[in-house]
């Protein structure tokens, strides 16, 4: 539940790190809260071309991410809802959100948004394989079929498999950057429609509609960040200590993303596939390490 309130902090953290690394003061960490609040009080402009699908996109996208959040464990602390195979449901819920956001983009009839939709679908195709491979490697490592037991089991891994955890974490980090449209995959701050991927897809959403999308984006950052953060060693003395550790780990992942964004340039669009492929290779290696 805390995730719902804290998630909009993450983009703020990332931007803060980027600003500091660039020698600027940067916007306050709470900027997204202010943006959301401002947008929430505005009216809406719909394109005359659009239908109910345009409005269904943000609603279903947010609903899918919220539902997926109930499946995300806080490191070794179990999720609200856990059952064998829940990782598949989590990934497919994100897929549902993406499907309808893509449809909403195509509903505007704009070539910009069509372009964004097409690129988003392509990136998703690239990110899905390393994501599943990494989750499968972790499932193998912890010998469990649900996210909560997997993340709980990682604490008791035999010595010498830390490398596997590290590799799986690296793969998940790439997925985190890809799915959330961050540098080096996509630049959330780019100013030219032609070079955008995610941002261009939501050009026509305004006011509270945009709030749903932006908030959903922050939650997705929280969700995939949580999958990475859960891999870090967290204090296990008490539940509250673990929870606090998890929050710190989430912040650490955001800081790492900020550092990556500050130090790396965006990859050219045609060479994008190489990164998720490398991530898939990492995940495969992790699997091999867990196999023995």
């Amino acid at each position, binding site marked *: 539940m805390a995730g719902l309130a804290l998630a909009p902090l993450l983009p703020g953290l990332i931007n803060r790190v980027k600003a500091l690394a660039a020698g600027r003061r940067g916007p306050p960490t709470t900027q997204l809260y202010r943006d959301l609040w401002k947008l929430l009080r505005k009216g809406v402009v719909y*394109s005359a071309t659009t239908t109910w699908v345009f409005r269904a996109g943000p609603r279903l996208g947010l609903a899918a991410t919220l539902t997926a959040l109930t499946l995300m464990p806080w490191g070794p602390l179990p999720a609200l809802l856990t059952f064998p195979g829940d990782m*598949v449901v989590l990934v497919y819920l994100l897929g549902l959100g993406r499907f309808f956001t893509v449809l909403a983009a195509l509903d505007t009839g704009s070539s910009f948004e069509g*372009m964004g939709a*097409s690129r988003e*679908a392509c990136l998703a195709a690239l990110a899905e394989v390393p994501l*599943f*491979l990494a989750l499968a490697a972790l499932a193998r490592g912890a010998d469990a*079929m649900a996210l909560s037991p997997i993340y709980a089991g990682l604490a008791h891994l035999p010595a010498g498999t830390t490398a596997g955890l590290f590799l799986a974490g690296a793969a998940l980090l790439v997925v985190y950057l890809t799915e959330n449209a961050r540098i080096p995959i996509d630049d959330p701050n780019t100013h030219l429609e032609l070079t955008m991927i995610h941002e261009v897809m939501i050009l026509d959403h305004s006011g509270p509609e945009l709030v749903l999308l932006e908030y959903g984006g922050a939650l997705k950052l929280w969700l995939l960040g949580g999958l990475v953060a859960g891999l870090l060693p967290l204090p296990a003395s008490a539940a509250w200590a673990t929870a606090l550790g998890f929050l710190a780990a989430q912040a650490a992942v955001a800081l790492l993303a900020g550092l990556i964004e500050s130090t790396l340039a965006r990859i050219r669009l045609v060479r994008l596939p190489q990164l998720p492929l490398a991530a898939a290779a990492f995940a495969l290696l992790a699997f091999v390490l867990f196999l023995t």
Partner: protein
Amino acid sequence: MFHLVVFRLGMFGFMTLFLTGLGLIVAGGLAALLLEQWPERAGTVAAILMVTGAAVAAVPALLVLPGLSAPVSCHWNWAFPGAGLDQPGLRLDPLSAIFLLPVLTLTGLGAVYGRTYWRPWHHRHEALGLAWLSYGLLGVAMALVATASHGVVFLVVWELMTLTSWFLVTFENEKPAVRSAGWLYLVASHIGNACLLALFCLLARNTGSWDFSAYPWLRTHTVPAAAFFLLALAGFGVKAGLAPLHVWLPEAHPAAPSHVSAVMSGAMIAMGIYGLLRILSFLDHPAPWWGWLMIGLGLGSALFGALLSLAQSDLKRLLAYSSVENMGLVATGIGFGLLGQATHQPALLFLGYAGALLHVLNHALFKGLLFFAAGAAVHAVGSRSLEAMGGLLRRMPETGALFILGAAAAAGLPPLNGFTSEFFLYLAGFRGLTTAQTGIQAPALIALAGLALTGVLAGAAMAKAAGVGFLGEPRSEAAANAHEPGLGLFLPMLVLALGCLAVPVLATFWPWLLAPATAEITGMPVDAFTDIINHLQPPLAGLTTAGVLLLLVAGWITLRMRYLLKPRPVRRAATWTCGYLQPTPRMQYTAGSFAQPMITLFRGLLRPRYQITRPAGLFPAPAAFACATPDVVREHYLRPLFHALRERLAVLRAFQEGHVQVYILYITLTLLILLLWKL
């Protein structure tokens, strides 16, 4: 009490009920032929008889499926000359029942749809009687394929199914493209049928019987089981459209009338899966490589189908390739089942087979829906090309909404039915991953990655079909003037859409419903699965919970937003185009450009063709760009192969004389030689 009623009914004979239903379907076809002069009335009578027939015949299937009634069978007091003493017969067991459901549902609904769909032909005064008769016979032939319990009967009704569907594929035979599609279908089917003929002869030779009830004998004796399996895979694989045997499918489906496409795609190609499972039910102790072969073939088909489906701009061809993809997923499930059987892991076995069977059902529901809706769109626009559609959701709100629902189901998204069966396959993959046997873990991982990639690509293909075809601005004059097709086309779609929603609601019941059929395939008792099914309840209940939660949250957000926006200014304006004020529909992203990044990514496999006329000079002449992705298997492997064959076999042309008398002489000579040889 209920069992008592079932028992009473059983006394009257479920088989009689089943045959009565099939008789009504044929009667519908015959009535349409007789009433050909009054096409409107003929269509109505045919539709009514066929729907009634399908409903009647479905009663025994629905009771046998969960084991409420024992399997029923019947025999004729007669034997095929030269085929031993076995009496030909039919048997309806749980495995038959699960395949009868899509056959009967789609045949019935397709008849209702066809009544309206074929109306434009009335105005052109074209005779429909034979088409209706072929349609009825196709439905009956499929039902008989699923129940035949005698090798010769099976081969005969299998051929009947092929021929009647061929007549329907070539319905619009005045078009050259349709004729060539029909020819390809006929040739491909008969190559498959040749394998089946060999298979059933081998089976009869090994067991000394044509009757299926004698075949469990094969389980306990040393037989060339691998040969049976491979022949069945080749013969039935053609019908199921498994790559690389799929080449006929993307040609035949678009050529056929839309309700026939729905029946062929949802039910007929599933008969290939049925045949394969039936043969597997005769065999025991499969080798692990059978499972790996099936998983490899299945994932290959699934990925290939999904990619090519994404590359198409012909809506019906896109859906046809999606069928290749889905049959690939079914084959993957069968592969997991075989693997579980080979390595004695009942949980893996059950998840694999049950997932495959459920996916057959789900595919029939959403693909039937998609073909029905696509037919309505094609009818309204007058073209199958996505580039001529666009904006149809505004003009055909009901059809469009159902198409989007079907597309989401076909993309395997929760909470719809496609995901329910894919979830079984994923569980099988993860189960394989967490077993102690190292030989299974690594390949299970590859299978999981393949399933994941197929899932996203299928999602992209479906987003393209729905997004480019039904959303945005109309891309042609005809699309701008499109309108709803009326109740006759809408009702069948609605029924299938409700089915897509009902399957996931029943998620926790499906293992129980599918257990008898799985038992039939593996020869295990149904009780052997009780523990596994109990262990399956938490994941399936979790799936349902997540689905319900999703709908609740989405509903809550929608209500909140409505409340929030009520007092706010809500304006309508043109789409943002960087300040440009006169966007035209031609400026939209096209179907081709939507798929381009992913096609480029896989260009080594797909080999797309580009024709580019670049603008040159200071005052360039008009430039042009065209991109097509022809079927790589057909273009680069089969076409050269068949060309080479034709060159080599040209010698045999000498025998092709052209006089019927000479051909009769050939037949007589052959018979004579055979007689002498046997003497």
